[in-house]
């Protein structure tokens, strides 16, 4: 007998579902969905306000800093000239330091090439080899053109790179011989 009932239920499922929800159900669903949408919009608006405020603060701050950096008479040429003068004042020291760094690294390269003390130095040697032509180009430029702010920057970068490699190589040697 149960089979009859079960079969009837399966065949007449839609008709058995007699209950209908009230009209206010959909209105409540709409209200809740609208509330969620408003919340999202509100959050976006909130974030947008903060972004705008942050942009204003940054602009004001940068403007203030720039006004301090640049003279009121808008003398950008004067600033560039002052930069160069300051840079060239100690250019001789920079050049001397670069040459000392170069000599020291050359010494390390020679030692490494003997293979007796620093067997795992191929990476260092490769880096030093790549820096050599840069050094030669810089010294040629210095002889030809004299000092300029661009050249000062190049010399500093080159020296920094060379020192960086030498430091790494020293660390490597220390590890190897511990």
């Amino acid at each position, binding site marked *: *007998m*149960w*089979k*009859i*009932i*079960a*079969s*009837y*239920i399966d065949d*007449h*499922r*839609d*008709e*058995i*579902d*007699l*209950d*209908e*929800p*009230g009209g*206010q*159900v*959909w209105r*409540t*669903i*709409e209200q*809740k*969905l609208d509330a*969620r*949408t408003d919340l999202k919009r509100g959050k976006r608006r909130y974030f947008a306000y903060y972004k705008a405020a942050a942009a204003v603060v940054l602009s004001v701050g940068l403007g203030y800093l720039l006004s301090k950096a640049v003279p009121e008479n808008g003398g950008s040429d004067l600033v560039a000239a002052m930069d160069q003068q300051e840079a060239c004042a100690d250019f001789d020291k920079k050049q001397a330091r670069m040459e000392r760094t170069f000599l020291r690294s050359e010494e390390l390269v020679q030692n490494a090439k003997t293979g007796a003390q620093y067997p795992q130095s191929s990476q260092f040697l490769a880096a030093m080899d790549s820096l050599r032509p840069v050094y030669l180009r810089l010294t040629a430029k210095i002889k030809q053109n004299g000092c300029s702010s661009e050249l000062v920057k190049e010399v500093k970068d080159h020296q920094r790179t060379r020192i960086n490699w030498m430091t790494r190589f020293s660390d490597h040697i220390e590890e190897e011989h511990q």
Partner: protein
Amino acid sequence: MEACKSGDRNAQFRLYKLYSRAMFNICTRMLGDRAAAEDALQEAFVSVFTKLHTFQGRASLGAWMKRIVVNKCLSLLNRRTLFTESLDEQLHETEDESKERDWAITESDLSSERIHKAIKSLPEGCRVIFTLYQMEGYDHQEISDILDVSVSTSKSQFHRAKKLLKEKLFDLKPN
């Protein structure tokens, strides 16, 4: 679907109209109370529309929505008081139809309205299990996992629901 996902209210209303009656009846059968069923339906549809972008199409949309509705109903049910039967009430009936009383019911005696009323009059625990098993197609293992009861409880409650339904339909059978 795409219109619903993008928040088109007209499209969402059309989807609601398509499924609300079936889902509402699941809620009334599970919760036994119209107000609670409407609350569950509202919460379920809000979830449906806010999570529609996660629907991957592995099952039908109706089946996916049904899962959401059933879960909402279950969250509203007080599961601790769902089954208060004593051990004596644990039924071990078999489905041996030949041993049943000769209930004089044929399909022509049945009506959707009578079955609807009979199901709603079942005690809460076995009504929930009857709804999940017979009406919504869950098996006893799934029911056991969902309601955190044993499979044997699920089966015994379902047997109880069947017995009560037969009695109620017999009682309701016109002379």
